């Protein structure tokens, strides 16, 4: 029997319209192993220590408020307490430091760290008779797709997802599950969006529904795409024409820009220029699309010859090349004529 300090608190429901003084409050403790019931009367606000404690099988603590004349009864609260009550904590770690909600991109790894505490172990003298809820917790991993073109379940009533994994954990331990990419499915995985949900729940016991000890989700966003139009690599330009840039599914925390450098495309140009009017900075909660025309590329081309224009997308996961094109610049001016010296 656990004689721990158990604080019982009560408070009259504010919704009751009658005078709180007309209500009598009772806390009834019901031991699950022996069936013994014990009463403590409490004022509208207060606390008391349970002298009987709770056993491994647990006890219900019921808070009742009863009207002193009409005998209308209200079960204000009910708690099930055991000497062994599991706790769980789920933490999802992604490459994106955004705190409001865990999020990542389809191709990026993420970790699920699960900490389970309070489970009874096999060496415990009460193991054989202890309730299931004290021995293990359930683990569920499921994946939900957002509707096409949507970035949430806002217009979906109780969405249906796929069960990816289920099992149970029977040790008080820290467990880390690493995923190298999303578990969502689709004909083109670069474009899928949705949520993956991880849940740890306690077993149902004594008529109490199975309780979610912790549940965390991670949002999955697609890979951004982009195009550059307006130049033809086979043509020679005296002046680089305006270019049209179309961007789709820009990561919610990203910077996209154009860089120009001399020569053919290379992974590490010796020197490059960033077109400062091309910056598209996204600080949002969902992916974004943008279309823009950039007229200033020519200002960043100082030399004649072949130049490479690249569309880069910087996210918390690194920098991706969305698109690239080449442009030949020829600023040579040919003057057809002669100089005549006339004496």
């Amino acid at each position, binding site marked *: *029997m656990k004689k*721990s300090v158990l604080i019982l608190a009560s408070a009259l429901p504010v919704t009751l319209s009658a005078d709180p003084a007309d209500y009598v*409050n*009772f806390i009834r403790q*019901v*031991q699950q*192993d*022996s*069936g*013994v*019931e*014990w*009463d*403590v*009367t409490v004022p509208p606000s207060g606390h008391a220590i349970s*002298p*009987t*404690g*709770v056993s491994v099988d647990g006890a219900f603590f*019921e808070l009742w408020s*009863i009207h002193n*004349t009409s005998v209308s*009864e209200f079960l204000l609260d*009910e*708690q099930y307490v055991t*000497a062994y*009550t599991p706790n769980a904590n789920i933490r999802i770690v992604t490459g994106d430091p955004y705190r409001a909600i865990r999020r990542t991109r*389809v*191709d990026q790894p993420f970790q699920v760290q699960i900490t389970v505490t309070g489970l009874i172990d096999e060496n415990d003298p*009460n193991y054989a*008779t*202890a309730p299931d809820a004290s021995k293990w917790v359930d683990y569920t991993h*499921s994946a939900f797709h957002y509707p096409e073109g949507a970035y949430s379940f806002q217009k979906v009533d109780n969405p*249906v997802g*796929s*069960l990816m994994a*289920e099992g149970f954990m029977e040790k008080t331990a820290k467990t880390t599950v690493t995923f*190298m*990419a999303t*578990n969502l499915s689709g004909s083109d*995985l*670069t474009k899928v969006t949705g949520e993956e*949900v991880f*849940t740890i729940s*306690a077993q149902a016991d004594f*008529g*109490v*529904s*199975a*309780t979610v000890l912790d*549940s965390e989700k991670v949002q999955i966003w697609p890979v951004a795409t982009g195009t550059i139009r307006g130049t033809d690599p086979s043509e020679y330009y005296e002046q680089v024409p305006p270019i049209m840039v179309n961007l789709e599914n820009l990561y919610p925390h990203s910077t996209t820009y154009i860089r120009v450098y001399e020569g053919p495309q290379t992974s590490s140009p010796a*020197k490059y*220029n960033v077109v400062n009017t091309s910056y598209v900075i996204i600080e949002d909660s969902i992916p974004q699309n943008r279309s823009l025309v950039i007229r200033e590329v020519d*200002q*960043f*081309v100082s030399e004649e010859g072949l130049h490479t224009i690249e569309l880069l997308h910087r996210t918390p996961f*690194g920098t*991706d090349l969305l698109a690239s094109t080449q442009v030949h610049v020829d*600023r040579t001016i040919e003057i057809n004529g002669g*100089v005549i010296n006339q004496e």
Partner: protein
Amino acid sequence: MNGLERIVLLLGIGAGFLGAVEPTPHGGENGSAKHIDVRPLPNHEEILKLQRPRDPGLRGRTVRLSDLQKPNLGDNAEKSAEAAKRRESLVKRSTIISGVRGWTIVPRGSVLSTPTRFKARMNGARKGKLVTWGDFYAKNSSWIRLLPVTIEQATGQKPLTEDFMESLKRTGLLVVAVCEGGPISVRLPVEGEELPRISEPVKAADWKVPSRR
């Protein structure tokens, strides 16, 4: 203007013209040599290779988002029904004790002895208002005797003896078992009925942190 002057003029115009089309070395001055590790975009096949293999046994299994927040009730129907009934009413599963100007409730099994003259006050007509056990006892202590019991006695592990129960009847008072001042039900031994299994004490060192469920 002589020939030499004209040549100088033309050269001057030409030089000026060439200077006008020369692009400003805008980017050149701001050029950067800082290396950026640029990766090509991943494609469908590459992501597919990174994914964890699916459990074939779970293929086609669906789940609703709300179910993850509100799991189903346990499959122990008997216990569920018992709990549901318990939640219906506290008064109905308690013993009512009435005084002259008020009444109260105590757990069933906590009244260990009821003299005949007080039987009408038990589970009978209620007079006045419901009051707490403490208030009720304060006004009716003349005909109620409190019997402090231990948890072992309440659970029946160390049952109250028949002799002791008989001695309670001789008091001529209503006897209510209490633990730490609160009425508590007492399991009395019943012939042919086994005592409930009681969990073994847990050492303080083995206590786990309790939490709300």
